[in-house]
């Protein structure tokens, strides 16, 4: 990803809270597919964070954390759900120009999956036109 060019680092205060998906109590066995976002050198870091906030309804801090994970680790699982759910998210991400794939969740995803948001909550509806 590319850091902001003309305006310097993001100086926004973390004022966006409380918009987090409220479905975090879903348990892993019910949600066997992951939505993965891959790093690329073109998409702006601010834009990726904006997409995570506006489409999934994630807080600014959660969106930035996932965005930085994409940037530093090359990929991040940003949502999971049924195959149909993550496929719908993937099409929306492609609409925004983000490089997204879906994959079957495997047990040993380590720390990565801890950061993953649950789909099916506030992510739905908001991004239908994305």
């Amino acid at each position, binding site marked *: *990803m590319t850091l902001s060019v003309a305006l310097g680092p993001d100086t926004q205060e973390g004022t966006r809270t409380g918009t987090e998906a409220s479905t975090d109590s879903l348990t892993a066995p019910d949600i066997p597919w992951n939505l993965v976002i891959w790093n690329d050198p073109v998409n702006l870091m601010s834009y990726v964070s904006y997409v995570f906030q506006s489409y999934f309804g994630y807080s600014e801090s959660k969106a930035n954390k996932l965005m930085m994970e994409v940037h530093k680790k090359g990929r991040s699982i940003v949502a999971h759900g049924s195959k149909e759910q993550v496929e719908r998210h993937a099409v929306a991400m492609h609409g925004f*120009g983000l490089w997204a*794939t*879906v994959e079957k969740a495997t047990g040993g995803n380590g720390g990565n999956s801890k950061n993953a948001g649950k789909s099916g909550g506030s992510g739905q509806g908001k991004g239908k*036109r994305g």
Partner: protein
Amino acid sequence: MAKAFKYGLKGITGFLEPAERELLRSLIDDVISMLQPAEHTSQDPLAALIGLDMDVQEPTDRAVKRLLPNVMKNDDGASLEFRQLTERSLRETKIGALRAAALDLDRDEVVLTAEGARFWSMALNDVRLVLAERLDIRDEEDAEHVHLMQDWSQAEDVESYLALVYNFTTWLQESLVQAMLQSLDSRA
């Protein structure tokens, strides 16, 4: 010179010179023409109506493939199957955003609703993805190299011109997204 987008009482506003609007319009038109689905004479009209395209193949042009990527990393068959179901409507979504942005280019002052801003950010992003493929930006180092090109008087060949255009659209998108993030903040 264009003015950065900002968020205010009127919504998200920006200002572009006629030459800049002309440039953006031609970039947008280029991307639209890349995204126009091929017409198949054998196309089943009902399938076309509901967005299916059983003749679709993985794009051969790298830029088109970046705009319409495979949905699975290591399964070309499943990706193609998914493409048959979804690619046509994805192309239409993208073309819709690009056309909406082009319509806003009729005036110097660009005033955007939240939805209009989203279309603009998507359109600028697709324009940048295509330019980046043409400039062969493969990693962050390439991106930094292109970013160093800032002086229009140095534009001597197609590549340096493309780099300047890329940097302009990057700057414009960044200012737009900052304004959009501010508008999200004020709604929270």
